[in-house]
């Protein structure tokens, strides 16, 4: 019996030189056949009649053909039929591939499923070697393909949580949204899709204080909890950081609200990690397709906008996107752009409202109040742009401008009148810088430190940072007085008043409003005044508009006042007039002033 390799010798010999290969010259033909037997590819040659002229040892393994079978001289179809790993369709497909190669006289490639102990994949490539010979190589690509699939999956997967990443989410969401759009063309009432954007609340402090390892464990637990609440075919992805997104199909508003509520509940429950009890929360914005956006980008943007509103509304909640959000966002963007330009275009001005010492019957100072002269919208009140300025980080330069301008102006006032300037909590974020700015504006303007008063709100002290207290003390060391603004509206805790020796407490104007509970308001004013007196702090009431309010203030022992009863805030050039006018007015009894 001759070995297949020996019978094959002429074909191999003839074919290889014609391809110009250097390999064939050196080894003997027996050796060459042995080499071919050992390559990991199944190798098969056949002629134009589709009769097999050679098969290597690997071919038998790959096809599951008995090793003893002589393939030489058999019809290709017959050999393929003996392949135990191929089903009928694969046999057929491979045969056709070879026929095509002969007919087309060019290389053909194909991929065929095969079965062994487990499912396998064969990659087949057929090339022509010479006029009468074709060679098919068969590669078991199962492992390689699995490896590639794993690599692809890893690239699509968020390594930390095992959830799909942003790219995969986008792909899947786009596909679903296309389906939704197509489905609604057929039936307008067909089910919708919803995109949820989730952002963890209070996660950053966890990372900052307990370390990234615990932060990572938290993210993994959050991912597990999300998966647990969601249904099997809902897609949840980690977009990055502590941001997740969910794609839901077929739920109505009620169902979505129930699900979102449950997500907020479950993610917001305590975590136990490395012995630490950790409490975080989640805020969720929802946008529905197609009404809130038919395209992925648009839907994502709107869900994000709803998320922003959920955060602003106090976190730990979910909010559906609403078109008003878009209108507000647009208005906000336009205001933001104007605001950024306003400082450069000198559209801000300061108005000054007198502060009156009741005992001395004299104006002792003015509070500087910011106004924005918008070229189109006219004068905009601080309440309408200060929060935005704080949010976009413009409050620092704006606050510094106010300090500089107020001191410059106050330096020109007669006598030793004082100017009170509001300083925002954000300005204390860089406490050293604030101290430096105050020192500089005092030096530049020539205003004595004693003539400047800064007004801060309680929230400045809430941050509880040593740097804030340190800055307040340094400011006070320059002779500048420090007043607590809006007292009585926030936490108003005694411990905060005691944490820093304030010079003055400013009683919030809400205590003077025409509320129903006058007795209660009066008692509050009295209590604050007494508290101030016992702590050595002066008190001033703002928002005094009527003689009746003034009398209440006086009766409760408050020392000074500010309000429309005396003067509205006036432009800088009218300050002198207010001062001289006040002297004139005081010549009359106060009760006759109105």
């Amino acid at each position, binding site marked *: 019996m001759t070995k297949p390799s020996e019978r094959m010798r002429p074909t191999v010999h003839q074919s290889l030189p014609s391809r110009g290969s250097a390999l064939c010259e050196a080894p003997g033909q027996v050796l060459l056949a042995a080499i071919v037997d050992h390559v990991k590819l199944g190798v098969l040659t056949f002629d134009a009649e589709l009769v097999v002229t050679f098969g290597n040892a690997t071919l038998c393994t790959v096809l599951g053909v008995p090793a003893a079978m002589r393939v030489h001289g058999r019809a290709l179809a017959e050999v393929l039929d003996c392949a135990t790993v191929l089903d009928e369709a694969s046999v057929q497909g491979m045969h056709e591939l070879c026929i095509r190669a002969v007919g087309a006289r060019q290389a053909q490639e194909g991929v065929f499923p095969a079965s062994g102990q487990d499912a396998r994949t064969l990659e087949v490539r057929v090339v022509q070697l010479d006029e009468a010979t074709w060679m098919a190589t068969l590669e078991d690509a199962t492992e390689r393909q699995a490896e590639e699939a794993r690599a692809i999956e890893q690239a699509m997967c968020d390594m930390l949580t095992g959830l799909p990443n942003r790219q995969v989410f986008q792909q899947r969401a786009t596909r679903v949204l296309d389906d939704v759009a197509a489905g609604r063309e057929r039936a307008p009432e067909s089910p919708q899709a919803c995109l949820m954007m989730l952002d963890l609340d209070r996660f950053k402090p966890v990372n900052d204080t307990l370390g990234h390892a615990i932060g990572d464990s938290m993210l993994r*637990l959050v991912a597990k909890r999300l998966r647990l*609440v969601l249904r099997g075919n809902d897609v949840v992805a980690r977009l990055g950081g502590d941001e997740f997104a969910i794609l839901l199909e077929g739920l109505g508003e009620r169902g979505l609200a129930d699900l979102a509520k*449950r997500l907020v509940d479950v993610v917001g*429950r*305590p975590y*136990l990690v*490395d012995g630490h*009890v950790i409490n975080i929360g989640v805020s969720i914005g929802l946008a529905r397709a197609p009404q809130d956006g038919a395209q992925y980008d648009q839907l994502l943007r709107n869900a994000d906008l709803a998320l922003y509103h959920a955060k602003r509304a106090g976190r730990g909640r979910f909010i559906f996107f609403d078109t008003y959000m878009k209108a507000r966002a647009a208005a906000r963007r336009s205001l933001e752009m104007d605001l950024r330009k306003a400082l450069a275009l000198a559209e801000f001005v300061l108005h000054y409202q007198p502060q009156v010492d009741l005992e001395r019957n004299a104006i002792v100072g003015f509070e500087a109040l910011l106004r924005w002269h918008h070229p189109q919208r006219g004068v905009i009140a601080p309440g309408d742009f200060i929060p935005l300025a704080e949010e976009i980080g413009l409050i620092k330069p704006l606050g510094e401008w106010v300090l500089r301008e107020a001191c410059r102006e106050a330096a020109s006032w007669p006598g030793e009148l004082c100017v009170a300037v509001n300083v925002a909590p954000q300005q204390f974020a860089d406490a050293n810088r604030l101290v430096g700015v105050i020192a500089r504006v005092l030096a530049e303007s020539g205003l004595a430190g004693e003539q400047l008063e800064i007004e801060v709100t309680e929230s400045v002290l809430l941050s509880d940072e040593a740097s804030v207290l340190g800055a307040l003390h340094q400011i006070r060391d320059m002779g500048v007085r420090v007043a607590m603004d809006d007292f009585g509206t926030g936490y108003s805790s005694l411990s905060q008043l005691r944490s820093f020796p304030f010079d003055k407490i400013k009683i919030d104007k809400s205590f003077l409003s025409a509320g129903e509970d006058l007795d209660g308001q009066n008692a509050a004013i009295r209590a604050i005044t007494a508290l101030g007196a016992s702590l050595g702090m002066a008190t001033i009431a703002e928002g005094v508009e009527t003689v009746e309010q003034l009398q209440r203030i006086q009766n409760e022992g408050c020392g000074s006042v500010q309000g429309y009863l005396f003067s509205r805030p006036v432009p800088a050039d009218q300050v002198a007039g207010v001062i001289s006018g006040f002297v004139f007015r005081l010549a009359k009894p106060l009760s006759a002033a109105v």
Partner: protein
Amino acid sequence: MAVIFRVLYCSRNTLVGSPAKIDAEIAQILETSRRNNARVGVTGGLLYSDGCFAQLLEGPMDCVETVFERIQCDPRHSDVTVLQATPVDRRDFPDWSMAFAGGTKRHEGLPAALEACSSMGEEIMETLRRVVGREAEWLAAAE
């Protein structure tokens, strides 16, 4: 020996239905937790009263954390408040995969504990010890 970690939390029952149905649900919760806890070496006690749960888990830290995390995700309760989470010298309930106290008798401290008043932790522990202790006596007497 590994450090024993203890967690005590209370939560509000979200089960709705007749008392009999709720009792059956709680019996089921107990059975599941006894089975699961025994497997991972976690012991403890469950107190149910006035629509509130208090549960104590003791065991190796990672096991307690796993059990706790599974309980967190259970939809049958809400408003979870952790009253204690600390390493301890020894187990308080070494013999109970999940001792149970509840049903008819009211434990006044439980609703108050849910108002996040962590000083109630020790009181609840005491109640658990007392009730479970008594039940153990009864069981011993019955045998």
